[in-house]
């Protein structure tokens, strides 16, 4: 009936888990079974166990409601539903009775491989695939055992289906009937609990509807911005005009008298204006006179930053790849190019915000965060409270894309809340959200390669100038041996460079001009595959080979790359003639454990490139919910398309220029291309889904533009660049 998963990865996952986690069951006061995942190896977490009792994955009530508590943040990617599918699958719950809840900050929700509660790196399903299945399976075993005792039957005679234990003769007991008996049982060892064979899956791999959909079409879904508490005040921050500028003096005489104003005072980065409503706070902010120090980033404008990045590229860097003859061969078939990309804002639809109620010995925080553990530590460091006394009530996130794992808005909210004994919601205006930093870093890259007389790659060199996200985020596990930041060299280091080449050298020069930078959907892959995959088309052109054929010839040992390329080429009918005035480009990228290839169809409308169609093929390993995966591909494509067309945070006199959606323009519905998405079947462990379809879009589109116009795009965005059809050059 059931058998243990026997793949290598599954048993590895189980071993990892055995060191960190065990399950604990209890019959809770209100009746029902509560099953909590514990992480006993982390001392601090154990202490917090008493404080937040909702840190449980499964709660089954006598009337057969199945509450599944999910600790990963829901920011649109569908984790609440996808993770619930994993538990409910192995529990054999009746999906119609499943109610999903957002978990508090708690050790129960730590990643199985790290003591942090974080949602990022396209990691929710990947990290929790085994542990949540095992948790569901353990609860099911307890139901079976309780029923076996009740009927005095061997457990092997019993089965489960849709929240019922079924005995021969169609005797049935619902899980609700069994909760108090099951709650008294010892929880089985997670390692030995049997898991379903994939042939028995009825939820995993199925396009189950989102569990958060109803409240998201009625306006009832609670976002951080929507928190309202008795006596609550609202704060806005007057942020420094340039990164690094310090508040020297301020005059709030006029603002103090404005309606609803409660207090105006300095915080670590700027000035807080606190009022009885957002409108009162943001209106009064305009009348505060402020003087700032003239600190600013190391450059005034983007031209200067580009020059600085070029200078940095003349410095020796840290080596991320070295193979064979690293000096390069410099044959007649030498190709070189220099690329650059700008800073990018995340521009989540919900501006950043955080509400905090401080008490003498505890705090409550309501916010949409991707990083609960860090939020707890941030509030602790500002207030001096013990981290375990700080509750983080994670709300729905109105977009995350990496931005909501930064702590600036939580730190400022904590500083503000310290002055009050009522809750205070600190809100970024859209302008604050766009101008207060934490961008995808600007980057510059030089690439060079040699081809032999057959058009095969014999040498490859790349040098990158980009800041260290490890330094900015403090997440040291992202550092490679030798001090190379993995996010800087993603796709180009020895481990991740996809193409066969015997001779090569890749170096990274840390260039940090003093702009706050952070993870942005697909992180280093967002720029590095633009560099690499447009460059590969130059190599194909130089060797007069078809871009797809050139790639396949250099990816002989990359079966997943080959598979997505072949699938996307077939679906997009690669090799058939393009319609007049239209061209297609192709690109492939591996990131976050998945591989995605895209064929992008481009035409010119009044000289501006327009993406008409995007065909994607994604190998994301085993897919839990194909409908949501398809939507993540759509979302990634459009996120990348906005950046390609017009995404740029630019600087004048060291200050950010773009301040709202008129100047930082996301793609709107009329520029949304036709999208066709192939999710390739796989029984490999799940890969990431939220990000991997982002990186190939820009290079595939630029490769199409090269085919259409003969112009090599080396700088993004496309806005401001002129293009003409190739035949009219």
């Amino acid at each position, binding site marked *: 009936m059931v058998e243990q998963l026997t793949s290598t990865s599954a048993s590895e996952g189980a071993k990892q888990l055995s060191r960190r986690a065990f399950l604990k069951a209890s019959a809770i006061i209100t009746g029902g079974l509560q099953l909590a995942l514990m992480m006993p190896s982390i001392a601090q977490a154990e202490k917090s166990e008493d404080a937040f009792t909702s840190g449980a994955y499964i709660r089954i009530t006598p009337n057969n409601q199945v509450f599944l508590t999910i600790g990963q943040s829901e920011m649109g990617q569908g984790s609440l539903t996808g993770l619930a599918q994993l538990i409910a699958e192995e529990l054999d719950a009746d999906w119609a009775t499943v109610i999903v809840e957002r978990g508090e900050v708690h050790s129960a929700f730590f990643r199985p491989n790290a003591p942090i509660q974080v949602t990022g790196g396209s990691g929710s399903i990947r990290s929790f695939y085994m542990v949540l299945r095992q948790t569901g399976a353990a609860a099911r075993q307890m139901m079976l055992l309780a029923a076996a005792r009740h009927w005095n039957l061997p457990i092997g005679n019993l089965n489960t289906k849709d929240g019922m234990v079924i005995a021969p003769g169609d005797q049935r007991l619902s899980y609700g009937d069994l909760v108090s008996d099951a709650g008294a049982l010892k929880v089985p060892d997670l390692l030995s609990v049997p898991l379903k064979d994939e042939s028995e899956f009825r939820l995993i791999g199925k396009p189950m*509807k989102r569990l958060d959909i109803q409240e998201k*079409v009625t*306006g009832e879904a609670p976002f951080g911005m929507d928190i309202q508490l008795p006596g609550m005040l609202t704060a806005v921050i007057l942020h420094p005009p340039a990164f690094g500028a310090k508040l020297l003096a301020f005059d709030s005489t006029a603002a103090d008298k404005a309606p609803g104003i409660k207090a105006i005072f300095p915080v670590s980065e700027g000035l807080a204006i606190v009022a009885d*409503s957002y409108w009162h706070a943001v209106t009064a902010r305009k009348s505060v006179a402020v003087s700032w120090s003239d600190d600013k980033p190391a450059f005034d404008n983007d031209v200067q930053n580009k020059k600085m990045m070029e200078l940095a590229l003349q410095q020796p860097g840290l080596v991320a790849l070295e193979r064979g003859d690293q000096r390069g061969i410099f044959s007649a078939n030498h190709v070189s190019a220099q690329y650059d990309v700008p800073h990018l804002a995340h521009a989540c639809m919900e501006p950043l915000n955080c509400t905090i109620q401080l008490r003498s010995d505890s705090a409550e925080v309501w916010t949409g965060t991707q990083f609960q553990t860090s939020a707890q530590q941030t509030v602790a460091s500002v207030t001096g409270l013990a981290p375990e006394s700080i509750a983080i009530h994670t709300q729905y996130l109105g977009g995350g894309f990496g931005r909501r794992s930064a702590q600036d808005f939580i730190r400022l909210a904590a500083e503000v809340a310290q002055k009050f004994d009522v809750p205070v919601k600190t809100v970024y205006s859209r302008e604050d959200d766009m101008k207060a930093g934490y961008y995808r870093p600007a980057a510059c890259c030089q690439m060079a390669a040699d081809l032999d007389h057959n058009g095969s790659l014999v040498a490859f060199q790349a040098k990158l100038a980009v800041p260290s996200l490890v330094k900015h985020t403090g997440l040291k596990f992202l550092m490679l041996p030798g001090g190379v930041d993995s996010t800087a060299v993603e796709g180009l280091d020895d481990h991740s460079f996809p193409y066969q080449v015997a001779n090569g050298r890749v170096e990274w020069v840390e260039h940090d001009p003093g702009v706050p930078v952070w993870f942005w959907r697909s992180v280093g892959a967002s720029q590095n595959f633009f560099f690499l995959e447009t460059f590969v088309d130059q190599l194909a052109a130089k060797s007069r080979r078809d871009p797809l054929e050139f790639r396949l010839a250099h990816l002989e040992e990359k079966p997943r790359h080959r598979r997505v390329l072949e699938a996307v080429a077939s679906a997009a009918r690669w090799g058939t003639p393009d319609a007049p005035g239209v061209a297609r480009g192709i690109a492939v990228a591996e990131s976050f454990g998945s591989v995605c290839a895209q064929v992008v169809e481009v035409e010119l409308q009044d000289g501006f490139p327009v993406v008409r169609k995007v065909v994607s093929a994604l190998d994301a390993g085993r897919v839990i919910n194909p409908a949501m995966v398809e939507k993540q591909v759509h979302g990634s494509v459009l996120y990348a398309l906005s950046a390609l067309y017009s995404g740029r945070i630019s600087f004048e006199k060291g200050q950010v220029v773009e301040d709202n959606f008129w100047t930082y323009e*996301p793609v709107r*519905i*009329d520029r949304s291309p036709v999208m066709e998405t192939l999710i390739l079947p796989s029984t490999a462990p799940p890969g990431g889904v939220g990000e991997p379809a982002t990186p190939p879009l820009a290079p595939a589109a630029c490769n199409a533009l090269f085919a259409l116009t003969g112009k090599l795009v080396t700088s993004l965005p496309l806005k401001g660049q002129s293009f003409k059809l190739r035949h009219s050059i």
Partner: protein
Amino acid sequence: MKFTLTINGAQHQVNLEEDTPLLWVLRDSLGMTGTKFGCGVGACGACTVHLDGQPVRSCQIPLSAVGNASIQTIEAVHELSAGQQIQDAWIQEQVPQCGYCQSGQIMSASALLRENPTPSDSEIDNAMRGNICRCGSYSEIRKAIHLAASKGDVNHG
């Protein structure tokens, strides 16, 4: 100043400065948080409500400009047949991802459907291009509007 507003068929009295945007009256004074703040400059559409049946950006409507107009928000859009059809189609097509922009999308779409029961793709683009979605739900929005339109035909046919 004191103002009386008609919102979703009920009267509400507020005492606020006349330049207070309708968005913040709804959210901060009346606790109706379904209408979202996205940009504050009328660029994103997250705050869309109906004013006498017309979709407007509530962040750009000062209290003094509302007058006796009837305001409809996401909280009561299901009372319109077009609104109910749109919400049903949104669920059927599983449109929302993060969901933050969807109140505004639904208000714009239901206003469109009321004016134009069978909109074409380009008519959908025209009506919906004021509503930004950063999650990229546009193709699902387009499908859902067509679905709602097709159901409307059946109902009225």
